[in-house]
């Protein structure tokens, strides 16, 4: 990879992912789902990975957890270091299991993500028995504590119930209780609120934030909902077609968006500001076929600011401001001075926070 490297580090971050690439062998050919993704997460911070369906955000975090079925999946390149130690392809580092113990994970659909024939308490107790060697009795009473920590009323009674007796929001709380059972340093939340209605969404996000304050864990939040991002994220990475196209603090992304795709996403958000009534502005077209990714920028065919070079060469990662990166040729010094090059109208990217 040529060009500017991602954030220069002085101390190792809690989680440091570099140049991760994942592909899937299917009957139709090989899908390059993730094509060189780098990001890092600091202790106690929340990183949101945003992008549309199929952009590779879930595959990225699932490959960290070793949840990609192999075959057909394959991690072709890259590294992921937890406190400086490689985790890809490992189950145990520093004498502790990674999954469930050092990294916890919750999923999109709580209704199907819990075993329907096992009591909630037993499912929460499972990682404790597995990683801490607790007896079933001790693990179960700890599970009850975790349930009340996740703000589930009558936790002792609830622990003895089965998933079908819980509502969706309650199940997601139980999932959270299960994921944080062993006090992991990172919680990966893969679209945790997508399947829930809006009021429950807010409660779950609040719960996550409360737990983060209490335990100091880092959260990697996968979502396609910019509203959720604005609410909880510290850092944001915008993914498109298997690559991170823009990365920066939440304010960078919302107030000083640099990449045309981020701009497109922001414009596509509905607003309820009566002064600013405008039509929804969807991004036309569809993402590129990852069976045969385009040689240049993946967003190029849909980009209103595309240039000749975008078709043929993948854009480099430009640091447009301190710790704010954008993978777009528009930031190339020559594009700035070239009279023929397009420029993004100022009023578009200095929008207000959605």
């Amino acid at each position, binding site marked *: 990879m040529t060009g500017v490297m991602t954030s220069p580090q002085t101390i190792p971050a809690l989680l440091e992912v570099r140049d991760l690439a994942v592909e899937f062998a299917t009957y139709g050919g090989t899908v390059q789902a993730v094509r060189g993704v780098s990001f890092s997460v600091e202790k106690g911070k929340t990183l949101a990975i945003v992008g549309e369906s199929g952009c590779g955000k879930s595959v990225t975090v699932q490959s960290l957890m070793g949840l990609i079925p192999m075959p057909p999946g394959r991690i072709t390149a890259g590294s992921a270091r937890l406190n400086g130690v490689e985790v890809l392809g490992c189950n145990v580092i520093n004498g502790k299991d990674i999954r469930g113990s050092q990294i916890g994970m919750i999923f999109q659909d709580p209704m199907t993500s819990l075993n329907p024939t096992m009591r909630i308490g037993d499912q929460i107790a499972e990682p404790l028995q597995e990683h801490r060697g607790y007896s079933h009795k001790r693990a179960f009473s700890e599970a009850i504590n975790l349930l009340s920590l996740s703000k589930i009323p009558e936790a002792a009674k609830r622990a003895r119930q089965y998933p079908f007796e819980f509502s969706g929001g309650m199940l997601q709380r139980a999932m959270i209780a299960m994921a944080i059972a062993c006090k992991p340093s990172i919680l990966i939340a893969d679209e945790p609120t997508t399947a829930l209605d809006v009021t429950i969404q807010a409660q779950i996000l609040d719960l996550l934030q409360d737990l983060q304050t209490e335990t100091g864990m880092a959260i990697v939040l996968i979502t396609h909902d910019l509203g959720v991002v604005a609410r909880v994220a510290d850092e944001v990475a915008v993914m498109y077609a298997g690559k991170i196209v823009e990365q920066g603090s939440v304010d960078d992304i919302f107030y000083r968006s640099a990449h045309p795709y981020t701009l497109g996403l922001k414009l596509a958000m509905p607003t309820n500001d009566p002064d600013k009534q405008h039509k929804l502005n969807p991004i036309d077209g569809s993402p590129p076929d990852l069976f045969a990714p385009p040689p240049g920028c993946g967003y190029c065919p849909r980009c209103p600011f595309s240039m*000749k070079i975008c*078709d043929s060469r993948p854009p480099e990662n430009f640091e447009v401001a301190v710790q704010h990166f954008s993978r777009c040729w528009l930031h190339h010094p020559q594009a700035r001075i070239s009279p023929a090059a397009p420029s993004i109208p100022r009023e578009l990217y200095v929008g207000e926070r959605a």
Partner: protein
Amino acid sequence: MTGIAAAEFARQASTEHAQTLSRPSLSYWQDARIRLQSNRRALVSLFIVISLLILTLLGPVLWSVNPAAQDLDQISVPPGRDRSALVVAEYTPWVIPAGTVAELQLADTATTQSVRLQWAGLPGAYGHRVYRNLYPVGPERAYGIPLGEFFDNSTLNFEDRLDLRPGTYYYSVVALAENGRPGTVAETLRVDVRRTTTVNEALAQGLVGSAADIALGDSLQVALHPLGTDYLGRDMLARLMEGARVSLFIGIIAPFIYVLMGVVYGAVSGFAGGKVDQVMMRFADFVVALPFLLFMILFKIAFGIGPGESGIFPMLIAMIVLLWPATARLVRGQILQIREQGYVEASKLLGAKSSYLIFRHMLPNTLGVVLVTLTFEIPRAIFTEAFLSFIGMGVAPPTPSWGSMSNEGIKTMLNTPHELIFPALLISITVLAFNLLGDGLRDALDARMRNTE
């Protein structure tokens, strides 16, 4: 970074905002056809099914041997046996030659007409017993079946005319002790028996045009049975084709009728809903609870088989009466599901009539499931027919079906396995073909079941 030409950064007209879809849009049935065509197992099965239908319909035209005709010269003959026969005169009684012989020997050419043996008296014998075996006599002295016993020392000859077939026999003469028990002294002779026929027989079988065409001592070929004959000398190929008609008739017609009944019943029940639906489904539940095969047997008895009836019709009725509820439940479930769909609601709001809703929306959308059910019901019906015929409750003799032929074949399984193997093989292949075809159809039609297998 500076090596990039400035022209590269020229603005480019946004060429394609709406990407063209590379795949043409396909209708449900087009999609299903393509999926089915790419499933090799299902295609082979389809080919087998079509071949079987051709065998049933065209076979008897091409191979016009009467399945009921008995060829008594060839009973339980496996396929591929030597068919040459020696033309001999009509049987005449044996005039026993005078004089003695030194050991057990043939007095005449061994033919399927008769085997004539002569022997010298065994040392110390008070009499002799003659045995015949299909296998060489081993150290355990298995002589085979006793044919005759002579408790005197003067009879030293024997004529065997018992059910002789072309092939090798082992004749033994065993000395009898004073108390009439067989002793240890014995003599064994290997005899190769030749197939024979007479002029009259050859004429009767239509093997030759006229008596002038053959003479005694000629060799000719007896009637061809490509798959051999059964225990009554009937041509297996002709019977298998006749049996295919029965088995496939029941196996295909019965499911067609009861699946159709189920579709109508289920559609009415599902569309009517409410009390009517509940009552109709409760009744279906009761019919399901009837132990199917027991009631098949019961109904077969109840409908009776009159003289000259083949028993196909009672079996058909019993299947139809007992087997419709499964389809009815399935179709009802589908109809209930489709009723809730948005497009049906929309159609209703546009003022569509019930009949339009049923025929335009509900039935076409259940057609795939019904087709899959039908394909899986066919092997089940074929099995049922075979099972009933096997326990003697199916089609009545002499009408052949694959099941009844297996039933007959199983009795002679050890000696002439071809009588069991052919019908059993046909049942298995047919059932296999329909099962694989059903799998293929289900994968092609039913999106929910895709990729699970």
